[in-house]
């Protein structure tokens, strides 16, 4: 029980990685030794941690990609490896359903709960309340830390088999549906941004960027470089250098 609590705390601290500058304390190579310390075998903790680190090497959040939950997987994988005395692989098989459960909960947080909290931040912006925006921002993060604490705590306490039963009882339509929704949601963010940035004059460039990416798979860095060329083709910076703004005015005034 005490061990389960402490392991939960490790998961909590691991998630605080994102509060302290994405400094990689959430990785199994760091959390493994901590788990080892709690369970009384530091050396084994370090060794299992590194095995899981290498297994999870590709699982890092890049862009909008959210990996299976490395924190829960790492902490419980190491913990089961030490308590069962089995290798990291067998232990990880035990930890995997729990990591999946954590990922499913992450998905609910990222696609439903947190966007709603984002609306709350908008409301405080409307009131000019700077402190409250930061409070919502930090609260949102700590909420997830707490959820991870609970998953890890119950995961270690109940064991992999019990969790598997819980995972199996979630209708697949719901998890699948939320993962579909999570693929669409960035479009909403872009639509909101585009409504501020776009005006009639620059709409074609939205499609240019989209088509370059869609047909030619050019990464965004390349699109920005081509964008700079487009700017120079479109706008003549060499003339009118000394004329006033009024003389060339009206360039940007037909927003819709």
């Amino acid at each position, binding site marked *: 029980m005490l061990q389960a609590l402490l392991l939960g705390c490790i998961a909590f601290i691991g998630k605080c990685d*994102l509060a*302290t*500058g*994405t400094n*990689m304390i959430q990785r199994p*190579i760091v959390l493994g*030794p901590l788990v080892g310390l709690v369970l009384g075998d*530091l050396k084994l903790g*370090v060794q299992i*941690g590194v095995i899981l*680190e290498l297994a999870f090497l590709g699982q890092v959040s890049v*862009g*909008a990609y959210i990996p299976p939950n490395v924190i829960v997987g790492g902490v419980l994988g190491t913990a089961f490896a030490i308590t069962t005395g089995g290798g990291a692989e067998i232990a990880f098989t035990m930890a995997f359903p729990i990591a999946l459960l954590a990922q499913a909960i992450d998905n609910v947080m*990222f*696609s439903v709960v*947190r*966007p709603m909290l*984002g609306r709350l931040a908008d409301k*405080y*912006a*409307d009131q*000019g309340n*700077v402190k409250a*925006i*930061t409070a919502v921002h*930090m609260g*949102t993060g700590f909420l997830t830390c707490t959820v991870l604490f609970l998953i890890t705590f119950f995961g270690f306490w109940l064991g992999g088999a019990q969790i598997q039963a819980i995972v199996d009882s979630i209708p697949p*339509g719901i998890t699948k549906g*939320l*993962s*579909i929704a999570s693929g*669409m*949601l*960035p*479009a*909403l*963010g*872009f*639509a909101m941004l585009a409504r*501020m940035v776009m*005006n009639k004059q*620059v709409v074609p*460039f*939205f499609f240019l*960027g989209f088509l*370059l990416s869609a047909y030619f798979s050019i*990464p*965004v*860095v390349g*699109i*920005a470089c081509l*964008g700079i060329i487009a700017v120079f083709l*479109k706008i003549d910076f060499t003339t009118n*250098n000394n004329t*006033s*703004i009024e003389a*060339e*005015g009206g360039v*940007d005034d037909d*927003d819709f």
Partner: protein
Amino acid sequence: MTTSNQPIKENGVITKKDLKRMFWRSLPMEFSWHYERQMHMGFCSMISKGLEKIYKNDKEKLKEALKRNLEFFNITPHISTFVGGITLAMEEMNVNNEDFDTNSINSVKAALMGPLSGIGDSILLGTLRILAVGIGASLAAQGNVLGPILFLLIFNVPAFILRYVCAMKGYELGATYLHKIQSSGLMQKFMYAAGILGTMVIGGMTNELVSVNMALQIGSGDSATLIQDVLDGILPGMLALVVMGVYYKLLDKKVNVMWLLIGTALLGIVCAQFGILG
């Protein structure tokens, strides 16, 4: 060199101390990440103290500034301070310049976030992290606690230095160039250019980061064809474009974003149930 309590630029209010503060406030950048607007709260929170100072005499403008900086933002978190610095420089310009089009602030942010993420991810997460794992892992495999410690140091020392330098340089660059642009009368052209670049990058990111896939097929058995394959043959990412267009229109019609969020979740579940999307 100015002392840390003096404004860095004439007519400005942002001091070195403010930028240091922004550096510290940038640490939880990813803490409240979500699919829809991603790091928007982190970004707004990072620069909010600076905004408060810039707009200390105008509460209405402060509200607007907070709202526009709560729009979509995503970047490699360790270099977020660079965009933060540039944004503060532009907000400062906005106070002193009646003609400044505030939409160009978001254009510049959009134009920067995509490319900088591409570069930042490959340098920090792709290279530096792998290097740190490589060195840390060989020690850790023998059960040596120095392994994890080295891992953290190799990754974090450069990452933190970079984050700090980006905060200072971002503001400096932004302020210096904006001043030059303004004094040479190119501000209108600059804002138009930012609009083009920002819009184009948003277009690219829409294809890259939005994913919608049809799971339906035509015909059955061996002759079955996935509709998605047909769509990809016409225009890859077509559905992402459609979804973005629908959101855009609905936002134009002033539909509450809360309903759009709930609707998206329900639509996802329904489409999964009937195997329409996958």
